[in-house]
């Protein structure tokens, strides 16, 4: 017992173990121990331990050197064997490598997409401290959360709160038409901003000075590509651009283009200073985007609370004037008024407020796509595992022989691991090729500009190699364990079990793979069904054959004559001028019944149109009449939709009087009710809406033209020619209305397409695996089939027999996938106010599809095996 305490030094022992590989130096450790004991007996523990250490340290250089040389020899041996195996079984290797490559490529493409989505607005310096102000109001249960805030809030933030380091307001004020010499363009991405804009958004100046560029009214900062568009190779600085034939602007700065991964793209910036509304003292008139940068270490939630307290002071007298009650009473009545700050880096994925500058994306899609990427990768890896283990029958003999001539289990594991890492490296190279080939298509699909830049980052290539080693390791370790554990005596016996019969794990993997595939199929079908439901459901108006001419306010007073001239063409049936286009965000007003108190106000969207709106869009009138211009149009006559009538609680709305809460003097008479129609995405419930007539001297920016279905291109040409007569050089901007209206479903459609594409890929990979698997399983049963045939089985019986196993797997996979698919897709459908029900048919269809695909895949092999001549198969041994 006492001797047990006299152990060799632990660390030295460990070092020896690490570098003296067992298969070569089995006896070494024993020798060390024996001699250690000898010294211990004769000269004591201290001498013994000292000897052990010295001997270890002196031996190490040689041992390490030897094991490196040995490693290289083994590695080159592994490589030789691996290449030989890959070459020997071309079909199998192809399925394995190709499946993996498609999986990796899909995964990387999706990851590029996800990383791009996550990178929005992070390129601005200090973007982590930059916020946008939003205003949330709740008025009689009508809530509004808008990205716009009022004019005085920004300056107060900057002046009264020391934690606000910089502030700028941004306003989009319509589409100016810019003139320079013979160049005329109507610009959509022009904004008016405070001179402090560049303190918040620290963009790079190519020319000009960020501190002074917007100091004077009449200055203009434009982007590099805009400078090129107007001035070509001339120097843009100091040039004069005329806006709308009214005001001249002096170019005082040229900045770099805004990167695509921003929530807010601008081409032109003009000073807010001196423009209308900038000094508007009203705190509830939200028409500006307010951005701030917080001082380091300050708390944004504290600022939110402080701001609302300060704001109450200013709002109180104003709200008293409009509504007759103070702010405290207003809030006590159950209403809300609050400020929130959105981090600028969150806007793209997390913000879906009213009046966003550009439509944003949604973080949900990040989850959905990451999940798909993971699912596809899993399917591909499982293929690999499955095929490798199934193939073990083929290699059982090899393993047996290797073991008998002295291979250690660890060496075999290493060899098989090395093989799968080799394969995944090849797959990685192939996947890079696939990515280069298919990324452009994906970019079209996802409206992105993704690139795989292998050489731009020094870590990209090592990362890819590491990734493929990881994948190879993940995919190869289970098969390696299985393969290397064969008992040589058993597998080398002529009639012995050949291994690979442990098919439980294999069944689990196939079932799992197909469960994932079926969930993907269900998902795709639900998305397609929901989208076609949305697109084919009766919107309550006719979105087809309408051409929209935009920016018609630019021709101003000539608009009526433009309309008249269009109507002269017999292919044009109706023309209407509107303040907004259906599908865009409308303005909101709070209306009450005549004399009703403010707390009964209803928030309603409104649209200003001329008398031809109903005819042009085929909107039906439920009751009363629409505007007519036989007499003079009257501002005090409005038309509402059915939802609005319900909100007011009118049984018979015609002739009823309502009031706008900000101008109670004007009594609004309801002269008509239109039937409800979907002017927004079907993900929204129809909102209450009212229509205001266009006054004589009002000219709005959209003219919608209904044309006859024949000769659409001729009609378009006619419209273009007519536009030219009135607008001269300014190119006509137009859009087919149905295409415009599709855009409200852009995100959904994009998701559907991406989801569909990757589902198909996932299913293809799973089928590749199934194909490989069926090949091996049928080859394993060749003899059995031969015997069955000689005993009189028919071909069809054998096919049924062979396919039964797969059918069983697919049915189990369906049973697993259905609840998951139901739960996932039901939660997706919650996003829509108008949605399909998840009918049992979707699930039955996906079962039929999955079974069909699987059977087609395996039947080739089954047919071949069933048709084979039994004498051939029985002669094999």
């Amino acid at each position, binding site marked *: 017992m006492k001797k047990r305490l006299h152990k060799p030094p632990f660390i030295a022992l460990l070092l020896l173990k690490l570098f003296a590989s067992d298969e070569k*130096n089995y*006896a070494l450790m024993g020798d060390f*121990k024996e001699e250690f004991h000898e010294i211990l007996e004769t000269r004591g523990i201290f001498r013994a331990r000292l000897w052990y250490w010295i*001997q270890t340290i002196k031996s190490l250089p040689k041992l390490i050197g030897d094991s490196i040389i040995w490693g290289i020899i083994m590695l080159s041996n592994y490589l030789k064997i691996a290449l030989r195996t890959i070459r020997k079984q071309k079909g199998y290797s192809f399925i394995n490598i190709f499946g993996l490559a498609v999986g990796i490529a899909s995964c990387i493409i999706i990851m590029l997409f996800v990383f791009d989505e996550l990178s929005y607005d992070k390129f601005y310096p200090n973007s982590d401290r930059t916020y946008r102000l939003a205003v949330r109001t709740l008025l009689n249960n009508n809530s509004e959360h808008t990205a716009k805030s009022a004019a005085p809030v920004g300056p107060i933030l900057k002046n009264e709160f020391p934690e606000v380091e910089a502030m700028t307001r941004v306003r989009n004020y319509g589409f100016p038409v810019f003139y320079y010499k013979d160049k005329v363009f109507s610009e959509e991405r022009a904004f008016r901003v405070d001179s402090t804009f560049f303190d918040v958004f620290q963009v790079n100046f190519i020319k000009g000075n960020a501190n002074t560029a917007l100091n004077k009214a009449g200055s203009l900062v434009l982007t590099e590509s805009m400078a090129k568009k107007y001035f070509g190779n001339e120097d843009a600085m100091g040039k004069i651009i005329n806006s709308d034939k009214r005001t001249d602007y002096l170019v005082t700065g040229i900045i770099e283009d805004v990167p695509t991964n921003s929530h807010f793209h601008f081409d032109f910036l003009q000073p807010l200073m001196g423009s209308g509304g900038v000094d508007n003292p009203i705190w509830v008139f939200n028409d500006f985007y307010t951005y701030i940068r917080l001082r380091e270490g300050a708390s944004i939630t504290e600022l939110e609370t402080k701001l609302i307290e300060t704001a109450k002071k200013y709002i109180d007298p104003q709200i008293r004037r409009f509504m007759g009650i103070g702010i405290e009473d207003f809030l006590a009545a159950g209403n809300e008024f609050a400020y929130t700050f959105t981090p600028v880096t969150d806007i793209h994925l997390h913000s879906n407020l009213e009046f966003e500058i550009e439509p944003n994306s949604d973080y949900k899609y990040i989850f959905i796509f990451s999940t798909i990427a993971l699912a596809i990768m899993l399917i591909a890896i499982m293929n690999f595992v499955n095929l490798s283990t199934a193939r073990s029958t083929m290699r059982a003999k090899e393993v047996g022989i290797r073991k008998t001539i002295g291979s250690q289990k660890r060496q075999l594991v290493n060899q098989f691991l090395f093989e799968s890492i080799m394969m995944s490296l090849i797959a990685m190279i192939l996947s890079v090729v696939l990515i280069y080939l298919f990324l452009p298509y994906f970019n079209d699909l996802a409206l992105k500009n993704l690139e795989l830049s292998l050489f731009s980052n020094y870590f990209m290539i090592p990362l890819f190699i590491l990734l493929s080693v990881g994948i190879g390791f993940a995919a190869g370790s289970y098969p390696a364990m299985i393969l290397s554990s064969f008992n040589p005596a058993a597998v080398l016996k002529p009639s012995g079990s050949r291994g690979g019969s442990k098919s439980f794990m294999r069944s689990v993997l196939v079932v799992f793979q197909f469960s994932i595939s079926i969930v993907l199929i269900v998902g795709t079908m639900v998305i397609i069904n929901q989208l076609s439901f949305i697109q084919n459901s009766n919107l309550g108006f006719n979105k087809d054959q309408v051409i929209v001419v935009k920016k018609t306010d630019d021709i101003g007073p000539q608009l009526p004559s433009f309309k008249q001239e269009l109507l002269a063409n017999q292919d044009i049936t109706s023309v209407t001028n509107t303040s907004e286009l259906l599908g865009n965000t409308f303005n909101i007003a709070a209306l009450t019944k005549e004399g009703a108190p403010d707390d009964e106000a209803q928030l309603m969207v409104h649209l200003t149109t001329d008398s031809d709106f109903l005819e042009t869009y085929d909107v039906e009138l439920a009751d009363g009449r629409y505007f007519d211009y036989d007499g003079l149009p009257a501002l005090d006559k409005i038309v509402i939709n059915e939802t609005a009538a319900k909100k007011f609680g009118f049984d018979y709305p015609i002739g009823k009087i309502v009031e706008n809460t900000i101008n109670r003097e004007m009594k609004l008479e309801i002269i008509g009710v239109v039937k409800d129609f979907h002017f927004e995405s079907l993900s929204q419930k129809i909102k209450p809406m009212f229509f205001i007539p266009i006054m004589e001297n009002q000219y709005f920016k959209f003219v919608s033209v209904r044309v006859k279905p024949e000769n659409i291109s001729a009609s378009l040409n006619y419209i273009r020619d007519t536009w030219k007569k009135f607008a001269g050089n300014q190119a006509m901007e137009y859009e087919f209305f149905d295409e415009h209206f599709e855009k409200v479903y852009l995100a959904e459609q994009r998701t559907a397409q991406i989801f569909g594409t990757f589902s198909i890929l996932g299913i293809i990979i799973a089928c590749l695996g199934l194909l490989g698997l069926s090949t091996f399983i049928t080859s394993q049963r060749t003899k059995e089939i031969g015997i069955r045939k000689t005993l009189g089985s028919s071909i069809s019986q054998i096919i049924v027999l062979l396919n039964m196993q797969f059918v069983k797997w697919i049915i189990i996979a369906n049973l697993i996938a259905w609840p998951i698919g139901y739960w996932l897709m039901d939660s997706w459908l919650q996003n829509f106010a108008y949605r399909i029900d998840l009918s049992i048919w979707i699930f039955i269809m996906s079962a039929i599809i999955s079974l069909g695909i699987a059977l087609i895949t395996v039947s080739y092999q089954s047919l071949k095996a069933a048709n084979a001549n039994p004498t051939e198969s029985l002669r094999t041994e």
Partner: protein
Amino acid sequence: MKELTKIEEILLLAIWKLKDEAYGVKIRQYVSKVINKDFTYGNLYSALNQLERKEYVAKRFGELTPVRGGRKKVLYSVNEFGIEALKISFKMKEAMWEGISEFALSESSIIK
């Protein structure tokens, strides 16, 4: 057949002499005594593996003694190729040393 290196020669002779005692510990101790300095296990097994690869020696497992921490001895023996190589080496040495005695060697070095 390649010429034996000095260390190979010493090892082969050691294994041949030690007979049934020719395993790691004993070989190392013997060689250390002969060359008069510590011959490390690293060098020992590196050289033994070389000899094994060149098929001069064969190895077999020996008994398991309690002091070896659960590892059997690995016993080495010189096989035909080894004997052959030793013979060649011996003949070469004989030819080289012919007519020279140790005494003569030390005499001449003094004269110089």
